[in-house]
């Protein structure tokens, strides 16, 4: 562990610099841009879950007065089978194009087929309804078991399972098999005094951002276009759109609007390339906004899963072996986070023998997108449920049981590297000592404990800090601010330069005004873009010292930089940053600091959650009555926004555990594409979410930062579901713990 440092700015609870625009309604989000001459695009979506498209006749739509352009799959050039960045994973370019506008088949209810642009939304909608599509309806597969049955309808004739020992000769809905192994689980299980195995189910869920996907695209005659959109990564929107349409990157300027939530779901393109086609064909700016129903039907849910877990332990509480076989639904195209499930499922534990097999399975549902720590909530849910059950069977306190087996510095992970210094033990200790854990439960109440692990990522970030003649500065960064990251950039710039926080204004530049930045995802922004801000700040300090040295006719080595002021160690002269900036004309021109980095050394963030529930035994309704989220931040730059990530993750996880699920009928028609029936948590559903910030510094970041955005959604699934098990005295395996599901378990006891 590195020494505890004293900081002047970071660790404060400052007012976020972009807050004023956001509390007054001035901030502009995805649907807020209007351009002169702008028209409206609408998408025709499949009413079927699985069908061949025999013909599309859009003559009537095209003839409708006010319709200016139509886009179909044929508008895409021939595309190579090539991977493009899509959130925390990659997507195949051809699959992406087929997802944007279907080619020969529709693969889920809501699959986009064609788009129309017209002078009003009403006309565009009317035109969409005039399109005639002839289908040959096929039987849908809606679940992993159906998809893997011997006689299952096959979604893609050219998909053969990858990763099998024998190369398959028959097409399959299983896209890939991956495995992770350390030691030999058979040896481990032979050593165990007790073994528990169970199979778990988690349903398809949606990220549920309140802002629907939206874009405005304006193409001009020179071949240049401007794409305004709500995205977690405008550079990746540029890359995908350019690849899909065969454009060079300098033809596309992508502007990231303010973003109204993403949680991983706004890392891939749904509308932008389509709006680009419509704009080019019509010669007019085109705006497209998804309805809420379209968001549910056509944009990235998180995978449903079936996960079998087997864990063995000795009577003294030592876990001897952990094994899993997990299948993740990918939706209509391959690429679920199954592999990430395998890498994370057992990582909170230091156990000699582990084995995880992971299957990526296509079904007739929307293609999944990243969702906050993709793959980990489902996988770790299954493992944590069994760990808690083992602790209970062994009559060991569930926190003590986890402490006894906890991953720590030096632990060999199942996926390769050894753990650096991590804070799981510290989180478990904090949980054990919390007032919540020491409180007593009443009748019909239960308690669940769960741990969570997520890697976090670093990646490429580019930052320029331009100093103004009065000593203030603009932080030009390129990471869309999804939860207050501008505040942390401002604080880190101040810390690195010694110049007061309010002298810096952070802005999110478009793709033409800052060099490439990877998406805001993988909990990377405060870590990686923050690291670039610090480096750019240090660059400014160096230049300030050189300029002061030039004024004083000394060497830069003879200049100290103390709290934003240059001090001449030889003559006791002082020059403030403002004075240096005012005089740059005499010392060599303007000052700007720059950093273009590929940040390495992202530190994993562990979490431990404690959840109390009360169950109404007559109805099966579960109320969360107390909740504490404990997580290692490394160093909390802005504690309020760190707590906010813990609380927000916890509540998304609570929703996943208690209510949220896509409901399909047997034909594969989504029954609940709206917030009334897909019920995310309301204010009235919840207690306050208590938080404890643990700080075990990440040695690879100048201030010790670990990403904090994602881990918080991992523990709630098991913390809530185990608390329900504890209250009803019967095991829960399938989510959600909705009243009918819980009542069924109570009644079948």
């Amino acid at each position, binding site marked *: 562990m590195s020494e505890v440092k004293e900081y002047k700015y970071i660790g404060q609870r400052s007012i976020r610099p972009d807050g004023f625009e956001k509390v007054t309604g001035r901030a502009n989000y995805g649907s807020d841009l209007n351009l002169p001459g702008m028209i409206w695009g609408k998408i025709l979506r499949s009413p079927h879950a699985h069908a061949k498209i025999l013909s599309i006749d859009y003559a009537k739509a095209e003839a409708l007065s006010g319709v200016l352009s139509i886009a179909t799959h044929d508008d895409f050039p021939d595309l190579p089978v090539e991977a493009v960045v899509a959130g925390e994973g990659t997507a195949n370019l051809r699959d992406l194009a087929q997802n944007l506008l279907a080619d020969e088949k529709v693969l889920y209810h809501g699959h986009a087929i064609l788009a129309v642009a017209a002078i009003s939304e009403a006309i565009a909608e009317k035109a969409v309804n005039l399109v005639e599509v002839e289908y040959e309806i096929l039987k849908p597969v809606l679940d992993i078991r159906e998809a893997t049955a011997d006689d299952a309808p096959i979604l893609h004739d050219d998909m053969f399972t990858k990763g099998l020992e024998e190369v398959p000769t028959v097409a399959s809905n299983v896209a890939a098999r991956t495995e992770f192994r350390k030691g030999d689980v058979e040896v481990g299980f032979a050593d165990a005094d007790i073994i528990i195995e169970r199979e778990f189910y988690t349903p398809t869920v949606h990220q549920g951002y309140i*802002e*629907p996907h939206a874009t405005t695209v304006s193409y001009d005659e020179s071949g240049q276009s401007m794409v305004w959109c709500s995205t977690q990564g405008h550079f990746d929107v540029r890359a995908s759109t350019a690849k899909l349409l065969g454009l060079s990157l300098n033809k596309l300027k992508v502007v990231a609007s303010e*973003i*109204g*939530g993403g949680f991983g779901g706004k890392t891939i393109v749904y509308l932008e390339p389509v709006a680009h086609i419509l704009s080019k064909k019509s010669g007019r700016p085109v705006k497209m906004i998804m309805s809420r129903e379209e968001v549910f039907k056509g944009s990235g849910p998180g995978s449903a899963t079936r996960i079998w877990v087997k864990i063995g332990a000795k009577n003294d509480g030592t876990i001897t072996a952990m094994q899993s076989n997990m299948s993740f639904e990918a939706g209509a195209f391959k690429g679920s986070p199954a592999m990430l499930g395998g890498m994370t499922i057992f990582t909170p534990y230091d156990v000699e023998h582990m084995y995880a097999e992971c299957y990526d399975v296509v079904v007739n549902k929307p293609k999944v997108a990243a969702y906050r720590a993709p793959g980990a909530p489902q996988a770790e849910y299954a493992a944590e449920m069994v760990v808690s059950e083992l602790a209970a069977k062994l009559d060991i306190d569930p926190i003590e049981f986890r402490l006894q087996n906890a991953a720590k510095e030096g632990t060999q992970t199942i996926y390769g590297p050894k753990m650096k210094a991590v804070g799981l033990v510290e989180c478990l200790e904090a949980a054990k000592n919390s007032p919540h854990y020491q409180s007593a439960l009443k009748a019909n109440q239960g308690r669940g404990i769960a741990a969570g692990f997520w890697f976090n990522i670093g990646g490429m970030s580019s930052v320029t800090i331009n100093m103004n003649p009065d000593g203030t500065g603009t932080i030009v960064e390129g990471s869309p601010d999804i939860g207050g990251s501008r505040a942390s950039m401002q604080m880190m710039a101040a810390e690195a330069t010694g110049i007061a926080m309010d002298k810096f204004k952070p802005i999110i530049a478009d793709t033409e005004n800052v060099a490439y930045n990877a998406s805001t995802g993988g909990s990377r922004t405060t870590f990686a873009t923050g690291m670039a801000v610090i480096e750019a700040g240090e660059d400014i300090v160096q230049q300030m010292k050189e300029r002061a040295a030039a004024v004083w006719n000394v060497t830069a080595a003879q200049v100290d930089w103390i709290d934003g002021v240059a001090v001449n160690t030889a003559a006791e002269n002082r020059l403030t940053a403002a004075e240096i900036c005012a005089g740059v004309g005499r010392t060599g021109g303007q000052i700007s600091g720059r950093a273009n980095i590929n940040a390495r050394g992202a530190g994993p963030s562990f979490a431990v959650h404690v959840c109390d529930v009360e169950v109404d035994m007559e109805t099966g309704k579960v109320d969360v009555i107390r909740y504490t989220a404990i997580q290692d931040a490394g160093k909390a730059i802005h504690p309020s926004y760190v707590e906010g990530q813990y609380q927000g993750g916890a509540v998304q996880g609570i929703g996943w555990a208690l209510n949220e699920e896509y409901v399909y009928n047997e034909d594969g028609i989504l029954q609940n594409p709206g917030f009334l029936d897909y019920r995310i948590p309301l*204010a009235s559903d919840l207690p*306050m979410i208590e938080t404890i910030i643990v700080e075990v510094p990440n040695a690879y970041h100048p201030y010790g930062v670990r990403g904090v955005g994602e881990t918080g959604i991992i523990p709630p699934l098991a913390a809530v579901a185990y608390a329900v098990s504890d209250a009803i005295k019967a095991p829960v395996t399938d989510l959600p713990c909705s009243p009918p599901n819980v009542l069924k378990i109570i009644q079948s006891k």
Partner: protein
Amino acid sequence: MTKKHVSTTINGDAIEFLCDPNDTLLDVLRKELSLTGTKEGCGSGDCGACSITLDERLVCSCLVLGVEAEGKNIGTIEGVSNKDQLHVIQEKFLEHAALQCGICTPGLIVSTQALLKENSNPTEEEARYYLAGNLCRCTGYDKIIRAVLDAADVMRGAA
């Protein structure tokens, strides 16, 4: 479709607009009048992002027709602050970090203002139920509730 002429008052300004009979008030605010502070999250009255007041009554503007604004007094997020001075509720949302992405914030602030007009001293539970029609996916509501209760305290003290 022949457009309808509507005379109304928005945030104290006398406003006239033309709209189709089936345009929602939300569409009119955002598209005709460029008052884009009022947000659309669902269009079906489930999320509260488009909350406004209509003659002091809190409503989802996506469930009101533009023509229903005739002769009414409309309050939107753009009218909450006073010149360059934020309203206490807005200040408390910032101070408590009660917003992350900020898309639900205008609706929540308008709803909170309506809550505190009806009940100047709400309990945590009363605040949670009053604001149950305003969905927030980022914060888990904890910091929102703290901001609302703190704003209520300050406003009572100031009143």
